[in-house]
C-alpha cells in the first residue's frame, strides 16, 4: 500500500464518525422529511406497532391543506409580523456598533460629563429615598441603574459598554423570556410603571386641549404618509432619469409604495379618508409622470437594472408609511381614549402579553432588544474597523459633515456586512419564535403569537401529524430559500453597485 493511500485511509477514518453523524442526524432526516411531506404519515395511523398500516403517498394534499386552511396563513402572518422588526434591529445594531467604536474615554471632557451625570443621578436617587418616595421604587431603580452604567463606563470605558451591550446574547433564552415576562406585567411590571405616569400626563394634556386638534392630527398623519409616498416615488423617478433604475425594475418598488395607500383606503380605521389617499396618490403619480416626460436629459438603463436599490428604498419608505398610517387613527382617537369615565380609566398602559393586539408587538420589542446586542453588532464593530481611514480624511477635506460622512463613506463600506446580516436575520426570523412562544405565551392569546416553527411543533408532536408538519416545514424552507435567493440576486447586486 502506498504512503498516499495509507494517508487517505487514515484521513477518511478520522472523518468517518463526523460524516456518519451528519448523514444520520442531518442529511437523512432532511431528505426523509421531504418524502414525509407528500405522505399521510400520522402517528395515530402509522408507527412501528401498526404493522398492517402503510404510509400512503398523497401528492400535494398536505400543501393544498396549507393553502386552503386558515391556520397556516394566520401563523405565517404572525411570523412575518415579527420580521417587520428586522430593519429596526439591524439599524439599532449599527447605531450600537458605531457608539461602541468611539472611545468614551478619549478626552473632550466626556469623562467629566459621565462622572457628573452619574453623581447627579445618584444624588437624585438618594434624595428620593430620603424623602421616603416608596411609591417610586421603580424610578429609583431605573435612575440608579442609569447612574451605575454611566459611572461604570467611566472606569471600564469601551470594554464595559461592549460587554454590557453583548450581554443579551450570552444570557440563556429561557431566562431572558422569564425576565421579560416580569417586565411586561401589566399592573406592576417596570415597563408599565414607567409608562403609566407618562400616559396619565398625556391624557391630562389631551383632555385639556380641543378635540378638533386631534381629529386634525388624523388628517395630518395621512398627509405625511402621502408625503412619504411622494418622497419615495420622487427618489425612484430620479433613479430612472439617472439611469440607475430600469423601467421594468421600477414596477415592484412603485407597487410597494402603493400598498400602504391601498390599505389606508380599505382599512376600517382610515376608510373615511379614502378619497384623500386615492386622489393624492393619483395626483402624485401623475405629477411624476409629467415631470419625467419633460426631462430630456435621461440616461438609458436596462429594463432590469437597479432592482435591488429600488427595492431597498421602497421597503424603507414602506415601513415609515405604515407607521404613519397606524399612528393617524390613534391620534384621531386620542380624545376618546383619554376620557376618564365610569367605564374607562383613560389612557392606560397595555396588557402586553395577555392582549390579543399587544402580544405580538410585545414579543417583537423583546426580539428587538435581543438583536441590538447580538452578533450583528459584533459584525458591524468588526466591519467599522475595516473602513479605510483615508476615505474619512478625503471626506473631511471635501468638507463633509458627520451625516454626509456616514451616508457616503461608512454606509457603502458596510454594505456587504449589512447584506450578510439582512440575509441571516431574514432566515432567523422565518425560523424563529418557537422558544418565546412556548415559554411566554404558549402561542396565545388566541394564537396571536404562534409562529410557523411553533405550529410545526404543535402539528408534529402534539397531534402526531408528521406528514402535515413536514409539509409546513418544507413550505417554510421554500419561503426562506426564495427570499434568500431574491436577496442574493438583487441584494448582492445592490452591494456591488
Amino acid at each position, binding site marked *: 500500500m502506498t504512503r498516499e493511500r495509507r494517508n487517505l485511509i487514515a484521513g477518511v477514518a*478520522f472523518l468517518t464518525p463526523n460524516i456518519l453523524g451528519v448523514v444520520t442526524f442531518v442529511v437523512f432526516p432532511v431528505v426523509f422529511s421531504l418524502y414525509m411531506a407528500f405522505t399521510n404519515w*400520522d402517528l395515530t395511523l402509522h408507527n412501528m406497532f401498526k404493522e398492517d398500516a402503510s404510509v400512503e403517498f398523497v401528492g400535494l394534499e398536505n400543501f393544498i391543506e396549507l393553502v386552503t386552511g386558515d391556520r397556516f396563513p394566520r401563523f405565517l402572518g404572525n411570523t412575518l409580523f415579527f420580521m417587520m422588526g428586522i430593519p429596526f434591529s439591524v439599524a439599532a445594531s449599527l447605531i450600537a456598533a458605531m457608539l461602541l467604536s468611539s472611545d468614551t474615554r478619549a478626552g473632550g471632557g466626556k469623562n467629566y460629563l459621565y462622572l457628573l451625570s452619574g453623581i447627579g443621578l445618584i444624588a437624585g436617587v438618594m434624595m428620593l429615598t430620603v424623602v421616603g418616595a416608596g411609591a417610586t421604587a421603580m424610578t429609583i431603580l431605573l435612575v440608579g441603574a442609569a447612574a451605575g452604567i454611566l459611572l461604570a463606563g467611566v472606569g471600564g470605558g469601551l470594554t464595559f459598554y461592549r460587554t454590557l451591550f453583548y450581554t443579551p446574547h450570552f444570557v440563556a433564552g429561557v431566562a431572558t423570556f422569564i425576565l421579560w415576562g416580569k417586565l411586561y*406585567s401589566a*399592573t406592576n411590571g417596570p415597563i408599565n410603571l414607567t409608562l403609566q405616569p407618562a400616559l396619565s400626563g398625556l391624557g391630562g394634556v389631551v383632555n385639556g386641549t380641543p378635540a378638533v386638534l386631534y381629529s386634525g392630527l388624523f388628517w395630518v398623519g395621512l398627509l405625511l404618509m402621502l408625503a412619504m409616498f411622494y418622497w419615495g416615488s420622487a427618489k425612484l423617478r430620479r433613479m430612472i432619469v439617472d439611469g440607475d433604475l430600469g423601467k421594468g425594475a421600477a414596477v415592484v418598488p412603485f407597487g410597494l409604495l402603493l400598498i400602504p395607500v391601498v390599505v389606508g383606503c380599505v382599512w376600517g380605521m382610515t376608510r373615511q379618508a379614502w378619497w384623500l389617499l386615492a386622489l393624492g396618490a393619483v395626483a402624485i403619480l401623475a405629477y411624476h409622470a409629467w415631470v419625467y416626460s419633460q426631462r430630456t436629459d435621461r440616461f438609458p438603463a436596462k429594463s432590469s437594472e437597479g432592482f435591488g436599490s429600488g427595492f431597498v428604498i421602497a421597503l424603507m419608505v414602506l415601513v415609515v408609511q405604515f407607521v404613519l398610517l397606524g399612528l393617524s387613527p390613534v391620534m384621531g382617537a386620542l380624545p376618546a381614549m383619554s376620557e376618564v369615565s365610569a367605564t374607562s380609566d383613560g389612557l392606560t398602559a397595555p396588557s402586553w402579553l*395577555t392582549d*390579543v393586539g399587544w402580544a405580538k408587538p410585545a414579543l417583537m420589542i423583546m426580539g428587538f432588544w435581543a438583536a441590538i446586542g447580538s452578533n450583528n453588532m459584533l459584525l458591524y464593530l468588526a466591519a467599522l474597523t475595516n473602513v479605510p481611514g483615508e476615505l474619512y480624511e478625503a471626506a473631511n477635506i471635501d468638507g463633509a459633515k458627520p451625516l454626509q460622512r456616514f451616508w457616503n463613506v461608512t454606509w457603502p463600506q458596510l454594505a456587504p456586512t449589512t447584506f450578510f446580516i439582512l440575509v441571516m436575520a431574514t432566515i432567523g426570523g422565518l425560523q424563529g419564535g418557537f422558544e418565546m412562544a412556548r415559554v411566554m405565551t404558549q402561542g396565545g392569546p*388566541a394564537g396571536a403569537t404562534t409562529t410557523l416553527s411553533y405550529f410545526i411543533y404543535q402539528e408534529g408532536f402534539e*397531534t402526531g401529524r408528521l406528514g402535515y408538519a413536514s409539509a409546513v416545514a418544507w413550505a417554510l424552507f421554500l419561503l426562506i430559500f426564495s427570499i434568500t435567493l431574491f436577496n442574493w440576486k438583487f441584494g448582492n447586486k445592490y452591494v456591488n453597485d
Partner: protein
Amino acid sequence: MKILFGVILTVLVATSLGTYLSYPDARSEVPVIYWVTDRNPARVLQVQRFHEWLVKNGHVTEDGKPVVELRLDMANRDQAKQIIQTVSGVASEVLDVGGGQAMRLFRQMEVIEDVTDEALAMGFDPSQTYAALESEITVDGRQYLFPCNVSAQGMWVNEALFESLGIGPIPARWTFEEFERLGKEFMAKANPPGTRPDQKRFFANSIPPVTMRRSAGVSMFNETLTASALNDSRYVEVLELQRKWIYEDNILPTPDDTSAFASEQGYGGPTLSLFGSGNYAMVTGGRYFLIRFRDFDNLGQLRVVEFPHGGFPNTTIGTRAAMVYTGADRPDLGKLFLAYLASEDYNELIIEDADALPPNPKFTKSEAFLRPPKYPNEWGTHGQFVKMAEEIAIPLVHSPFVLTNVANNRSDDYSELFMAFRISAEEAALKSAQAIDEAIRDEVERKPELQPLYEERLVLQEKIDAALAAGQKVPAEWIKNPFHLRYYAAQGKLLPEGEAAPETSAAVTTP
C-alpha cells in the same frame, strides 16, 4: 496520528463498556422497569411501598426478593416526549398520563396495552374506582388505564377571611346569582379605596368554563360526539357572564390582576400562596391542594363548596393515571404495578399525602381519610370531595372523531378573542362550533376507518334530535356523551331501562 486515533477509539470503547456495566439494568438481579411520572418526592415512598407490596403478595423470586425492581423516570413526563419515545420503541414500561385525552391518543397509536382481562383477574378493573371515571380509563368497553389518583374539582373556601368580613356563610351549593351577589359584597368589603393592585383581594381565582357551560346544559359535543354543540344561546350567556365577572364586576381576577401578584411559586403555582395570604378568598382545585396548604401557618378552618351553577350542579373529575407500554420488554410487570395502584397499601399513601383522592373509593370511608387527627381544620373537606366525585362529577368528553386537544385549541382561540373584546359572544360560539366541526370533518376524511361509525352516529343523532324535538324521551344507549347522559337523566329525558325506543322516521340500528 494513527496512534492517537487508536487511543481515542480505545478510550471510547472502554467508557461505553463502563457506562453499560454501571447501568442499573445490568447490575440488578431481577428485571428493572421504569415508571415515568411527575417530579414529586412522594413517588420515592410509593416505589418503596410497591416493592414491599410485591413481597407481601408473593410476587417474589426464589430467594424471596421482589420479582421486579421499579425505578422512577421523572424526566420524560412531557407528552411530546412520550409520543416520540413510544412510537420509537424506547419508552418506559409504565407511563403516567393526564387521563382519557392522552390515553385516546396513545390508544389510537396502538402503543399501550389493553389491560381489560388482567384488570379483572388482578383486581384493578373499573369497578375498583369511581364510576364517573369509566370513560377516562376505558374506550369501547376496553380498559387501558388505572388511576394513580383522582381529582374532583371544587372551591376551597377560606372561612376565617369571610368571617372577618362578616360575609357568608358560603352555601355548599349555589347559583350564579348567589355567587355574583356574594362576590360583589366581598369585593366591596375586602378592598377599601386605595388598595394597591398587588394587595387586592378577589372573591375567587377562577371558575372553570367547562363547569359553567355544563351547568347551563351545554357540552362541547353533541349527544353522539359527531359535531360541536357550542353554537347555543346558553353558551353565549355563559361566556358573557364569565367576562362580566372578570372585567366588569372584577370578582374574578383578569390576567393582568393575576400577573400583578409577585408571589412565590412551588407545587400548585402561585395560586395557592395567594389563597394562603388571603388574596384569593376561594380557589378552584382538588384535594391535592392540601399538599401545600399543610405547609401554611394559621390557615384556619377550611371548607369545600361546589361551583356556582346555572341550573345543573356539576363538577369535572379527572385522573393522573398509569398505562403500560406495548413495546416494553416485560409489560406483565407493568400490569403488576397497576394492580398495586388499586391496593390498600398504595391508597393509604395517597390518603396520607393528600395527593388528591385515592383511586379506590372504598378506602375513603375510613376515619384516617375523613378526619386525619393531625389536621382538624381539614375535616369536612375530604368527605365533600368524595361526595362530589360520586354524585355530581362528570369526566371531560372525548370524541372519537377529533383529538380533544385539537377541539380545545380551536374553541379556545375564539373564547379568548371574546374575552379580549375582539368578537361578540355569538360570534365566539358560532366560530368555535364551526372550527370544531371542520376539525371533525378533516379527521374523518383523513381516517377512512372512522367513516362507518361516523355515518352510523349521524343517523343516530338525527333520531335523537327528532325525539327530543317531539318532546319524547331517548334511550340511554343512544347517548354517547357522558355529560348528556347525566344531564338528560337529571332532566328526566332518558327512557327507563327496558322501555321501547321512540318511533322516528329515521330507521337505524343502534350501534
